């Protein structure tokens, strides 16, 4: 119809356990109104409406939880994502190292059409803590090496950069969506073939 269609973006949050994925989401969502719902079946689902580029966008956020146990459900959760958020903990070098495999895993499972340009956003969380172990430079370098993924340092605790990060997530996902317009191709004409058995013909009770 004439009205600009509403947009819905599916956002997946990935990362090692206890890097603060759920906390980030909670910080982001609960700061404002949201219709929140939690179901712990391998993932939490949250919805948030945001304004991005003058459009109302509904973000459907899939916060994967206890992921090792739910690896097998990967395809299901990753399928059709518009954006993937990779989260690590700046105080945990391991969680940073694992981002590589999280990213690869996502690309394999979700198999997006254009993997090189799929919108990822990387978040280094827990910057409010003193015992930082992964330097900003190191993280930025890695992000640059992967097609220049946007990088933010956040604190789910005090809210640093959380809003900004999710704004970027929404905008990048939207940009990706806008690239492809409706697939309007002329449909093939039905070919009538007198030999063709009308597939439902003659079956009992099927014809009017």
């Amino acid at each position, binding site marked *: 119809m004439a009205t600009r269609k509403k947009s819905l973006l599916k956002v997946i949050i990935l990362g090692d356990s206890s890097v603060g994925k759920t906390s980030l989401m909670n910080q982001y969502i609960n700061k404002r109104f949201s219709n929140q719902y939690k179901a712990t079946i391998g993932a939490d*689902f949250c919805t948030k409406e945001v304004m991005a580029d003058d459009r109302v966008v509904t973000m459907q956020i899939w916060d994967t939880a206890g992921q090792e146990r739910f690896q097998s459900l990967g395809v299901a959760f990753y399928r059709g994502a518009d954006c993937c958020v990779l989260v690590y903990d700046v105080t945990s070098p391991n969680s940073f190292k694992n981002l590589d495999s999280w990213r690869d895993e996502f690309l394999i499972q979700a198999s997006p059409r254009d993997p090189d340009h799929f919108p990822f956003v990387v978040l280094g969380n827990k910057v409010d803590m003193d015992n930082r172990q992964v330097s900003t430079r190191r993280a930025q370098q890695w992000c640059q090496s992967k097609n220049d993924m946007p990088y933010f340092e956040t604190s789910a605790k005090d809210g640093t950069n959380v809003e900004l990060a999710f704004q970027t997530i929404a905008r990048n996902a939207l940009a990706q969506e806008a690239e492809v317009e409706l697939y309007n191709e002329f449909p093939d004409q*039905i070919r009538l073939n007198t030999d063709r058995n009308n597939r439902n013909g003659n079956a009992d009770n099927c014809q009017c």
Partner: protein
Amino acid sequence: MDVEPPTNYSDSASMQSNSEYSDAECEPHIDENEYFHDTEREHNEIAHSVISEIREGLTPGTQNASNGINGKNANTSTNVHKSVSAESLPISNSTSTVSGEIVNSLSAATLDEGDDDDAQFDYMHDSVWRGQKKHIFILSEAGKPIYSLHGNEDKLATLFGVIQALVSFVQHGQDAITSIHAGGIKFVFLVRNTLILVAASRTNMSVAQLQLQLSDVYNQILSTLTNKHVTRIFEKRKNFDLRRSLAGSERLIYHLLSNDSSNKRVTNNVFTFLTNSIRVLPLPTTVRASIVSGIQSNCSKIKDLVFAVLIANNKLISLIRMKKYSIHPADLRLIFNLIECSESFKSSENWTPICLPKFDMNGYLYAHVSYLTDDCQACLLLLSVDPNVFFTLSDAKRRITDKLRSTKSLEAISREIEKPTNGGLNLTAIGIPELRHFLYKPKTAAQLLCSELMPPYTTLKEFERLEGIYCDLLHRIHNSTRPLKLIYEVHEREVVLAWVTAAYELYAVFEPLVDKCAVIKNVDKLIKWIEKEYDVFFIRNHPTF
């Protein structure tokens, strides 16, 4: 009345022709222990962790979930699943059990009493939304909302996520989820192609009946977009928001779903859906014959014209078809639906692409749609495979109308349309005062004759009860594991009868105090009457061009 021993439909036949009834809503026997004995160790582990995860998130004691999941019923799965689930029974058992647990979580989520501050914006905690008798949700495989019968689907995005997770989880076990029964609600799933359709219903409909409804909805989507288009879109982009393509056709889906009592409608229309049939406008045989010949004579030379369909008041007047082609009742229902909810057709000639999925799910037919005249509100559809023949068909329509006018067919149609008893046969014509309502469907055609709704069934509450009686009878008669031939029951408020013979199916509701002899006598009288008038109420053969 002779009771013939029940015969089992062969599975393959019922899958093809009577798929709407092929699911017996039997409660599968699920043994908890069986699940733990599952030799698929890997699978077991996964299931375990999911269960414990779910348990953690459970609100204890809120819902009494049953394990009534027909996950292993191969008949009702989509084609892909049929073979798979038939081969993997042990797995499906365990999966069902797991899903039974998930039920708790889902129903706790949707039905829990919420004391959320955001209640006014939150459908899941909104009593009106939750009180709806029937919900229909359509989503993509990615879990993106496409349609919700009630409420803004955007606001329900989290619920759609949960549905997707449920479906995917069971899929992961090489199985397909069919239904969940919890808290007095049936959750029925239909996974087709790249779409997930779900009904959550407190109505009288059985799982199979709800699945037929979901399949009608799916067909409605295909009718707008074609299967090929939907497939291609999601091949290219799994994250596609199908609402963009369906914009403007939500009203068709809504209308298709709004025929029953859950939408406060008191109408016979729901019975055509329940019996997978259509209704015919009663006309004297000579009138119908002259209408047919009027259409035939003006269409026979038009190349690529596949069907000419004349309908009025949601009933078929005549159908003329190309040799070797026929229309499936599900396709005809889509046509009826389109006409019923397009007022604009009344004021002008229209040219619209329409996909009839049972005819060809991958392509469009092009329909010239117009009402015959201002004084005869019958709607003519001329359906061709050629997108460039508007003017040819427009011309044909004009000539058909002239011809029907000269043979006085227009008047005859109008007379019938304007009869006050529209909506069903007036029972006083037959003279069986004890008979309150009936449905009659011949075996040879997907056409339904039903009587006008009379008191007490004219109020919503009583109609709902009548609908429930028929849902139940139809369900038991067409139960694939144990189909019945005859049901006679004395209820508190009526006597009900269902009777299947080689020639017809009859469902009838009588006054509560009639005895068996009277019922037999009355049914006999009714059948004789219908047989005598058969050609007025039914079309034996649809002629060709």
